[in-house]
């Protein structure tokens, strides 16, 4: 796996990573990945206190890694540094919760109507902002009762679908649609009950929790992996996590490598089946002018943009690749009050581009990209899975 070739020694201080970093361009005081990564890493290895608050502002988008001509593995160094950063108490408490969307989801989806009611009450939001530094300027996604889903599609090829926290606790309806979509393609998918993949834990500097989640996830997927059943996920962040040895936390683990080799992004999976002639092309003709936004964690999987290819096959659908940078949301990042402005500044070029193109729909598989796009523009953002299902069953989403 390429991650094991990433090395601090490789850095030639060329600064190309800084040119690719969306936060560097958006925030005048952000030192940039070159400094926060390899430069401070040598200081950390020396054992001096190299704690710099700015590491908190790293989006974890991996664009620095992709742009680096010498494979330094910058973002992993920054992620490790985040874990040792001291934070003020309330922020640490907030980030503790943000690191555990599985736990948060379990609690908030017990009584979703109550949760959703309170989460949009202005006084509650104001209190959250004052106390916990959770910005009141955004809406929370609605929570819903998780659904026990199985047996959709009869006797098709087996697959295990890794839902991720968002589909489980916020969009079980979409999860069901994805299973229907798979069934329409001859795949009978079980839903894995794995819990969180650990990306938010890494992003919030809780590496111990991330490792715990990694072990739990691997354990829950082990049977499928050993039986050769493909593990599918539509969440780009979960996909990156499962394919990369959990963000490098489990580099060297044979089990993690095996899981990586058995994980498919949903779009990647369907595009592969399309090449094998196994993709269902019984489409209704639609009428959609779509702009596609590739999530950063899809780019970091290095598999191209399979949903672009798939959507382009649907009659009546025209797709343009937005290719306008990171949206700036990065999961929980954009919800943090101190980071809200940076988040919006990072996404500004994307918002502008959407404003220029004025598409009917913006398609992106990442839930938080979706939220950010709807927050920052007038566009309607949907997942490509919903568009595909509409092409199958003719029912508008």
């Amino acid at each position, binding site marked *: 796996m390429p991650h094991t070739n990433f090395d*601090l*020694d*490789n*850095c*030639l*201080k*060329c600064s190309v990573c800084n040119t690719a970093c969306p936060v560097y361009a958006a925030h005048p005081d952000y*030192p940039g990945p*070159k*400094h926060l990564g390899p*430069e*401070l*890493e*040598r*200081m950390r*290895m*020396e*054992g*001096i*206190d*190299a*704690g*710099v608050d*700015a590491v908190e502002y790293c989006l974890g988008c991996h664009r620095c890694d992709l742009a680096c001509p*010498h494979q330094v593995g910058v973002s992993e160094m920054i992620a490790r540094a985040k874990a040792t950063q001291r934070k003020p108490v309330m922020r640490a408490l907030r980030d503790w919760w943000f690191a555990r969307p599985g736990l948060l989801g379990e609690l908030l989806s017990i009584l979703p109507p109550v949760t959703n009611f309170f989460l949009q009450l202005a006084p509650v939001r104001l209190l959250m902002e004052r106390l916990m530094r959770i910005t009141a300027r955004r809406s929370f996604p609605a929570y819903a009762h998780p659904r026990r889903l199985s047996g959709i599609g009869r006797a098709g090829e087996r697959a295990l679908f890794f839902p991720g926290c968002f589909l489980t606790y916020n969009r079980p309806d979409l999860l069901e649609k994805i299973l229907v979509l798979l069934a329409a393609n001859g795949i009978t998918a079980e839903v894995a009950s794995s819990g969180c993949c650990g990306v938010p834990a890494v992003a919030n500097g809780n590496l111990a929790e991330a490792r715990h989640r990694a072990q739990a996830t691997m354990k829950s997927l082990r049977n499928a992996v050993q039986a050769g059943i493909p593990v599918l996920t539509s969440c780009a962040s979960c996909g990156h996590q499962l394919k990369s040895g959990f963000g490098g936390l489990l580099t060297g683990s044979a089990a993690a490598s095996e899981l990586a080799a058995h994980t498919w992004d949903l779009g990647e999976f369907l595009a592969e089946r399309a090449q094998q002639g196994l993709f269902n092309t019984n489409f209704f003709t639609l009428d959609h002018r779509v702009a596609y936004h590739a999530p950063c964690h899809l780019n970091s999987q290095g598999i191209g943009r399979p949903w672009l290819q798939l959507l382009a096959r649907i009659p009546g659908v025209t797709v343009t690749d937005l290719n306008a940078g990171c949206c700036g949301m990065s999961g929980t990042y954009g919800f943090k009050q101190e980071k809200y402005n940076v988040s919006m500044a990072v996404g500004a070029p994307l918002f502008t581009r959407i404003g220029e193109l004025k598409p009917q729909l913006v398609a992106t598989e990442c839930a938080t990209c979706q939220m950010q796009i709807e927050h920052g523009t007038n566009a309607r953002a949907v997942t490509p899975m919903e568009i595909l299902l509409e092409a199958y069953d003719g029912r508008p989403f």
Partner: protein
Amino acid sequence: MNSTQVVIIGGGATGAGILWDLTLRGIPALLLEQADIAHGATGRCHGLLHSGGRYAVRDVETARDCLRENRTLKRIAPHCVEDTGGLFIQLPSDDPAFFEQWWRAAHAAGIPTERLSASQARALEPSLAENIVGTFTCPDAHVDVFRLVLANLEAAMARGAQFRSYAQLVAIEQQNARVVAVRYRDTRTGEEHRVGCATVVNAAGGWAGQVAALAGASVPVTCDKGTLLVLHHRLSRRVINRCRVPGDADILVPAGPVCLLGTSSMVVPGPDGLTASHEEIQALIREGAALVPELAEARILRSFSGVRALYTPPRAVAGGRGASRSYALLDHQELEGIAGLVSIVGGKLTTYRHMAEAVADCVARKLDVHAECATATTPLRAPHSSQLHQRAGLHLEQPVTEKLIARRGTDAAQILAAIEQRPELAELVCECEMVTRGEVEFVLSGPALAGARTIADIGRRTRLGFGPCQGTYCGYKAMLAGYATQQWTAEQAVAEFTRYLNERWKGQDFLEEGKQLQQLELSRSLYGEQPLATACTGGNHAH
């Protein structure tokens, strides 16, 4: 100034230590150094503050001296010392009898040591080879050699002592077989100066023979060359020693953000024009990789060589590791009847203060000054307040603050004041070693004692250019800083930078492949294959 009591020749640890010792005894002194601080052996060694473990088996007295000085230096110069601790590692091919001998000898010398199992050692230092047999701990440490020399000089100069860099000794004047003056030439300006004095102390290391010859005295010195490699980042927390009869590439020393591997030993004709051969370097890597396997693939930033000056009186065996490492104090009045000339040769960095004490005792006696040595108990730097950290934290990030204050101590206050006036001085000129523009301007300018006159000088005082880019980016910015503070005209600045860069490139000459070679090629492509050989003007230059 045109007269003083004592002129010391040689700005290494010994010379600087003598300057400080004499100053504390109230004896006015001037130190002349032909290039810049720690130009000779001091600036070209591991910077290992020995616990004595390396010498215990062969010479218990030397080991005891080392241990005592190790403790003394940690007390008087804590800001120069990183107390890393050390390990002595036995590999399968090492003599087990030696290992046991080491244990007994260390105890005889009073060196605190514990025996560890291989797995315990590897738990402490994961980069150690898997096949290590046994380990001893010891109180080895790393001393920043430039910071140490500078600390001695600054402490002395604050109390009135004088120092001149780029001062090439031209003559030692005598009248009636008594030293009366020295003449030296400033190699950067070309000006010659004469300084009257009563005593000359020859602490010129590998050049001691040449200096003595100027007075018609003889100091037979054998130059034994050692080569070291600088690695990109720290591979261990502690000093790693090979537990065997001392040989090549036995020691890996963490040195700030890098680590140093060495060394070798071969007799060379003199202290100048040193080169390291490809085979020598490959041999170092091979030997070192036996201790720490990742050394085989690690990125090497540069190689450098220095000489140990070994006193070899006429009837001694040829030099090398067998020759005595303890020092020789030569009173030329006794030896050749030349009054007022004393030479000090040999010794090691760890015991520099002790050597300086012996010399200062001798000089004080000659000058009839009755003052005891105070260097063992006088700290080299005044403590700074925690307020300084807080104040720095307002403008600079944590690691920059730590480095600034560790390097400059209370002088950091002046630098912070400048940054408060002009925020652009917070710019990191050297990003690898966290050196701000404010600090660079400070070491270049008046307020700094023993200030920098060249970019390489800035490097020795701040570690600028010591990191992965080897001066590619920071050297350019330092040049601009020197220009902006009117050290140099534009043309002189370019000439200085050219010289600096060529010297930095020379240390990477041995590279045949790998990341450092790419870094070097990047550097060359930025400034052209032969940057401005034609732009060099004015003065004669030290090299």
